[in-house]
């Protein structure tokens, strides 16, 4: 990490990025750890729901923000992960951890299948094909009553004893989220992550330096769909039910909006976007069923005033202050 001798600007920059976030993140984590005994059950549930949605939005951002791909139907993989676990818990007697692993893997397999076709098309055509193939899977889940429960879904899925209380489920989801975030962060900072961002910015140049663009895009899709599958599994842990609207395209649109709202060029932005939207739906939704109207107004304002998203905005206005801190830190160290 500190090998960049003779290049102080780069090392300083990377040091800033890695340290600036560490302590606030640890602080937030500690607050979330002590929350369940203090907060009402309803809030514990809402927070857990935000964690699940945040992971889903973060996984989408791997393809949309870092890969520049038109991943228009990401919720399909969320639903596949959730249904895989739900079906394994209700229809087989396999231990639950098998389902926990099978959910994300199944989502990644479906991601590989759909992605294999999609990366052969560009931009909007990629998005249209993904909506078509994704809707196909939704239709199967929606109509296959004997297996998936059709439009009723599956309810009352038994939760394993160690996850029996809602507080335990909360902690399980929180830890799973943290592990996934660390894994995603490592991937984003890896050579693959760097290459993926280069592919996003200039695929033609990448081909000319020996990078197989399609393979990298497909890898990004498989990784992102795997994490979407994890989110799906966590949803089952939280809700103990699955239903076809998990795979419906409106949810895909919603998580896309979360990425835009939070800031898709930042690592943690989609989490913030997820928190905002889940909170809006919960608290504005209590007063009016037209909460999406409020969302619409927010989106219009966002496009005009914060095109880089909420997180991107804070990073930008925080940028000058942080640079000052960085310089004084450099002088001291």
């Amino acid at each position, binding site marked *: 990490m500190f090998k960049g001798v003779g290049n102080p600007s780069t090392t300083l920059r990377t040091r800033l990025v890695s340290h600036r976030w560490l302590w606030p993140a640890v602080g937030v984590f500690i607050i979330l750890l002590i929350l369940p005994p203090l907060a009402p059950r309803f809030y514990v549930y809402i927070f857990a729901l935000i964690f699940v949605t945040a992971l889903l939005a973060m996984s989408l951002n791997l393809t949309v923000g870092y890969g520049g791909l038109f991943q228009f139907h990401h919720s399909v993989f969320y639903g596949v992960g959730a249904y895989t676990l739900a079906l394994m818990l209700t229809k087989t007697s396999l231990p639950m951890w098998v389902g926990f692993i099978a959910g994300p893997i199944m989502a990644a397999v479906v991601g590989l299948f759909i992605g294999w076709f999609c990366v052969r098309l560009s931009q909007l055509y990629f998005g249209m094909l993904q909506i078509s193939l994704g809707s196909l899977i939704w239709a199967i889940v929606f109509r296959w009553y004997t297996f998936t429960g059709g439009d009723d879904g599956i309810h009352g899925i038994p939760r394993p004893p160690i996850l029996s209380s809602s507080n335990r489920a909360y902690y399980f989801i929180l830890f799973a989220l943290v592990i996934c975030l660390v894994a995603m962060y490592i991937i984003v900072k890896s050579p693959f992550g760097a290459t993926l961002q280069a592919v996003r910015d200039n695929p033609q140049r990448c081909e000319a330096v020996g990078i*197989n663009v399609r393979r990298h895009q497909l890898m990004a899709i498989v990784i992102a769909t795997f994490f979407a599958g994890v989110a799906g599994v966590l949803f089952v842990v939280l809700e103990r039910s699955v239903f076809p609207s998990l795979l419906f395209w409106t949810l895909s649109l919603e998580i896309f909006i979360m990425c835009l709202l939070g800031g898709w060029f930042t690592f943690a932005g989609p989490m913030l976007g997820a928190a905002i939207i889940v909170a809006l739906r919960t608290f504005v939704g209590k007063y009016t069923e037209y909460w999406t109207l409020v969302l619409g107004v927010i989106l219009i304002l966002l496009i005009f005033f914060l095109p880089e998203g909420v997180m991107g905005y804070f990073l930008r206005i925080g940028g000058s202050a942080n640079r000052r801190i960085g310089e004084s830190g450099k002088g001291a160290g």
Partner: protein
Amino acid sequence: MLQVEAVHKSFGDFAAVYGASLTVEKGELVAVIGPNGAGKTTLFNLITGQLKPDKGKIVFKGEEISGLPAYQICKMGIGRSFQIVNIFPRLTVFENVQVAVLSHQRQSSNLFSPAQSLAVEETHRILESVGLSGQAGNIAGSLSHGDQKILEIAIALGNEPELLILDEPTAGMSPEETAATIQLIKQLAGPEQSRGAGAQGLTILFCEHDMDVVFDIAQSIMVMHHGQTLIQGKPEEVRMNTQVQEAYLGFDAAQPSGGEPDA
């Protein structure tokens, strides 16, 4: 090292390259010249796989490469820069080159090591050799046009190519920048060319509008006109060729003037 035999490429009804042939020997510095629209860039795109030829054969190190995808051709040892600046504008100068070095080291799919600790020395060595060390931490899009063109070359060097293809490396540069770039090309080329320390012995194929430069540094010159090869030969042969004088040079070749204006 590289043989291009009668390649053709049409866009609709327009034949951009119509029977171009070219030979590049190992260690040579070869120039392609021709008026604007002669098909030079298209020819380069055919060699490096950005385009697929309709007809003809391209052989590199004894293997046919025509029609292979660009990334495979690059992996076989052909690096290139582009005429119109083609970099990663949002990444830093360092990261621009690092992406290429990582690709060369077959690390592009590595998911678990931190990228910032990989290929650092190699990347700095390349940046130093082209004189961009001082800019390493700057965002590439903020560089001057001349530095972006140099960065183009640095990215191409990241793959440690055996054959380096430069498409108008000095286009849009000031006279001082042009002189520095030519010096860099000489330095990258074989020992005969650099006549000094720091020679890297690369085989280089380039196209360039400045005739003084071309006749000064190239060991072999290929002249293109209307997508066809008129002649390939040593600078003296090309200079004395009447067909070339009529078609392109358009001046008394014995007393070269300042050259053609840029595109």
